[in-house]
Each structure stands twice: as C-alpha cells, then as structure tokens.
C-alpha cells in the first residue's frame, strides 16, 4: 500500500486580503507533493475549523497580515479543540510580532513563520512534524 500523502489546508481567517504569501505557500506545498486545499480570503474562524475537519487535513496553516491574528488564531485553535480535532497540526504565518509567539504556542500552535522564511524551511518542518493521520 502506498503511503498516504500529507494533506494540508492553507486558510485566511478574517478580513485581511493580503494573500500573496498564502498563495505562494499553497503552490509550494503542492510542488512538495502534499495534497493542498486553499480556502481563499475572508474565512471566519468557524469556517476555518469546520473546513479543516471536513477535509480531514493533517495540518492547518493560518495566514494573517492585519494584526487580527491575536483574536483569530487562538479562536480557531479553540474551535478545533472543542470539536475534538486538536490532533490537526496548527501553524500560523504573517506579520506576527515576537511578543505574540508565546501566547500562540500556548493556544496550541506548533510553529509560527514570519516574512523572509525560505519555502524549503517550511516544507522541511512539515515533513518532520506532520504525519498523515491514520
């Protein structure tokens, strides 16, 4: 039996439309051999969480550049937990000030990637830390 591919979802919660990073990453993940679902902009935290559960993804990556990550990111983490889906690996990216990292880790985020991170660094991180869920 061939090994299942890693399924990742890239999501844009909130009203922020800065989607260059999210779209570049979606394409990069596809080229890296992952199965990719990209939600498009303007998803509510509820939509992000339920889409991730319905699509049965192994990892959910949230992107936000507006500063609203402080509310939106933990909210998605909370919703996943409430629905028993906190085994989905949660990562975040965008313009995230250093002092916001720890609260996000505490909320359940496994990694935060900020501007300037090479694509390969993110792909390698996923290959090491995300396994297809059985």
């Amino acid at each position, binding site marked *: 039996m061939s090994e299942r591919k890693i399924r990742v979802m890239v999501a844009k919660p909130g009203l922020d439309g800065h989607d260059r990073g999210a779209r570049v990453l979606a394409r990069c993940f596809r080229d890296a051999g992952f199965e990719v679902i990209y939600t*498009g902009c*303007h998803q509510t935290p509820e939509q992000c969480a339920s889409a991730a559960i319905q699509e049965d993804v192994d990892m959910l990556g949230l992107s936000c550049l507006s500063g*609203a990550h402080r509310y939106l990111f933990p909210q998605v983490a909370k919703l996943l937990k409430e629905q028993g889906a906190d085994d989905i690996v949660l990562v975040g990216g965008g313009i995230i*000030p250093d002092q916001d990292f720890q609260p996000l880790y505490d909320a359940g985020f496994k990694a935060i990637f900020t501007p*300037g991170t090479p694509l390969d660094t993110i792909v390698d991180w996923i290959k090491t830390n995300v396994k297809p869920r059985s």
Partner: protein
Amino acid sequence: MFTKELLDQSSLLRQKWEDEVRRTIEKNPDLKPRWTTVSDLEIKRLYTPEDIKDMDFARDIGYPGQFPFLRGNQVTGYRGKYWTFRMFSGMGTAAQTNERWHLLLKGGQTGLSTAFDFPTLMGYDTDSPKARGECGKCGVAIDTIEDFLTLVEGIPMDKISTSMTINPPATVLWAMYLATAQIKGIPLEKLAGTIQNDMLKEFIAQKTLMCPPEPSVKLISDTVEFGTKYVPKWNTISISGYHIREAGSTAVQELAFTLRDGMEYVEDVIRRKGLHVDEFAPRLSFFFNAHIDFFEEIAKLRAARRIWAKAMRDRYGSTNERSWWMRFHTQTAGCSLTAQQPYNNVVRTAVEALAAVLGGTQSLHTNSLDEVLCLPSDHAVEIALRTQQILAEETGVANTIDPLAGSYFVEALTNEMEEKAWEYIHKIDEMGGMIAAIEKGFPQMEIADAAYTFQKQIDAGEKVMVGVNKYISEKEYPIPFLEIDDSVELEQIERLNAVRRKRDSRKVRECLDDIRNACKKGENVMPYCIEAVKNYCTVQEICDVYREVYGEYRDPGLY
C-alpha cells in the same frame, strides 16, 4: 532618430567593443550569467543608438505637455509645483487619525490620504462578528458620519485635497465626505480629492470584496456620473496598479492590467451612462507602485503616460488634451521592505521615491521603515516625509524635466514596457474585456506565477534581498513598535451604539429602502447615499443593501 551614417558608425564600433568583451570575459567572467530586473526582464550589457533607431522624435518622445506626454503633462515640470507630498495614514479611532493628520500638515505635508481599517474597507460595522479583532488595526475605523466629522475636525476641506483608499463601500464613504462638506457649508464644486474606487484590481489583487464584478463597476460608474455633474474637481477613480504589484506581479503586468482596468471603466461609463469620453476622462487618475528596480520603474511610468494618451485619442476618439493626460500618484513598494534590519528600508524607500520622481509622478507616498512590521510610528513617518523633501529641495532632481529622456537604455526599456503591455491589453480584449478575463482567472494566475517565480529566485539566491537571503546580521537592532490597543474596538462599538440610540430609526429604514429601490431600478445611488449618511445610516447597513440586491462575491482562492 539617427542618420544612417551615425548608425553605421555605431555598428562598427559596437562590433569592436563586442570582440573586446568576449576576450575580457574569458579571463574575467561576469559575476552572474543573467542580469535581470526585479521582474525578471533580461537587460543587455549596453544600449546604443541602434536600440532606439526606429523611434521618431516627435511621435514617440516630444515635449512636456504635448502628445504623447512621455515627458510629462506639465509644461513647466516640477518648477511650478513639486509633486504632492501625500502620506497615507489612518489608525485606531477617528480622533487618533485626526491627530496624526494635524501632525503631518504641520510637518509640511501638502495633501491628505486616508487608510481605513478592514471592517470599513469591506463594508462591515465594528460590531459585526466578522470584524472581531480588526478594529483600527490597519487604518481608521469609520461606522457613521459622526466618526467622519471627528476625522476631518479642523481640516480645511475647501483648501486641502483628500484621498480616500476605499473600494467596495466607496459610494458610502464619499457620501460621508460630501455630506460633511454640506454640513460645514462648503460647496461641492470646491472639494478636491480622490476616492480609490477601483474594484477591478480588488478581484485581481487586493481582495477587499463585496459584490460581483458587474454591479461593482455599475456603482463606480454612478460615482463618475455624479462627480462629473456636481463635484467637478474630484477624481472619482484612482485606477491602481499598486496592489497588483504588491500581490507579486511584474512591472509589465502592473502596467498592462492597470491600464486595461482603466479602459474597462471608460467603456462602462460611455455605454451605461451615455457620457462622452471627454466629459469624464479628465478626472480619471492612476496609482502606481515604485518598486526597487530603478530604471524599470522609471520606464514603466513613462510608458504608462504614452500608452494612455494613445488609448484615449485613438481608441476612444477623445479630442480633449486633459483626457489624454495620465495623472498618477505613486507609493514606494511595501513588498520590497524587510522585517530584517528594518533601518535599511529608509534607503530602499529613498531610491524608489527617486524613481517615482524621475518617472514624473504628481503625488507620492513614501513608506516608513517600520511599515513591514506595524503601523508607522510618528518618528518613522517623519523620516519618510523628510525623504521626499530632501529629494525635492536638496538633490536638484526637480531642476529639469524628464532628465533621462534620450538615454538609449531608458528609451529602449520604455519602448519594451509599452510593447509588452499592449500585448497583454490586446490579449484581454480578445478575452472579451477585463471582467471576462477576471472571471477566467487570467490576471490572477499571471500574478500568481510571477510571485512564485520571484520567491523561488529568492530562495535560490538568484535574486538578493539584503538582510533576508544575503548579508544576514547576527545582531538585530530593534525598532519601536506602534500597536493599536484592543480596547479601541470596545470604544468604537460604544460610539456606534450611541449613534444608534439617538438616530431616527424610521428615517434610517426609509433611506435604506430608497437605496434598495435605486439599485433595483438601476438609478444612480449617490444622492440616496448622501441622504442616508446624513441620517446616520452605518457603512454596513448600506453595504448590506448592496449585498442583498447584487449578491455577494467570494474569493475563489486561485493559486
């Protein structure tokens, strides 16, 4: 441009030089195999008269203030008036932004420019569940005309021009500006300013979305018609390439998609409103990015003026010189700035601003060094404004008009930008216009390709960003960080509720019904919007009517 004798001479000398180049690089090879612009356009080692031999001086270059306006619209260049120093600003509440505006005006800024927060940009009130966490973060929060009155407190609206970066709810925010002027007793014909009001680039790049493309363009044509009749000094659309570029396009794509967007609006107003092109085209304005590749940007801006002049005259039969003018604002490239070693951003911004000036911009925003991390601090904004003032008044670049004209390289690159842009424009024509192209995802995917290629080149080290993939410092020097307190959201909701309590809710319903009817009948919504905002209808209440009548557009998430 040149005599046959000169070209023969040039050709002979060139061959001799090429032989020497071959010999030299055998011993001393070039640093890299390809020399390209930031947009990956390959540049030759040297440009000569042969590269521009097909140009006709009068037809292709000419004089300032004369067709094809390659050398600028103004006959006196910057000597009569420097470009407008227009810094984009807005944060937190209307009162906080008003304070920043007074600071900028005191510092010598000559025009205002408003940044709204995401809920306002998308047509939601601060208390909408969709707005949670966003209030005041990336701009000022405006829910009702009460906020607007605070925003312009002490600003001489009849003397200073104001630009508002607002797109889906442009009719509403413009109505607030006009209603505020009326309340203050300022006649509409005295008002000068700009609303961005360019929805096509939202679908292509910026993604502040509300209704589908077709009705979005209808609302824009309403503003053009209203402005033409009642607010003649207002620029009703700022056709924007800035966001297209920030989303990762090349310079040529920015140029082509922006100008084709402009053509789409012209065609819609002519068809839908029955106006003659020369009745409204003089009030169309443009907005470009000034990216880090110095000559490519200058060439792009020069080409833009020539393409637009030709399009207006030859494609739309315009006979008014004012319609041929492409007037534009420029902003330095946010996407060229780095979070790493942020003080380097001052240098990048200065070079980009110089390119904008040499390209002949009418108005300029220079980014602050900290904008890649947060809203700009007072100090960072001051440095950015001073950068423009140093360029204008110390460096001498404003002394003479279009100083790079006649450069073999700059003219050849300008021609190349124009040719490549027309190829795109014709391709979009063949698709049935820009709305059809957007529905096919064409410009979106072209930009996605370019953005991905660039990122791959950065990761491979083929392109350099200092501090990011080369010359990385061990030690970072932290910068002060301006943050909008989360309490702003609660304050703003309280203000909104206070307005809701005091207003006449029967009147509010009537106003919204009037807008609904106007939408359904295809009437111009502007007079109804002005009435509605005067009666304290909120931004979202009016936008909900649009969403209800025209439907809601969702980002298809192409990548």
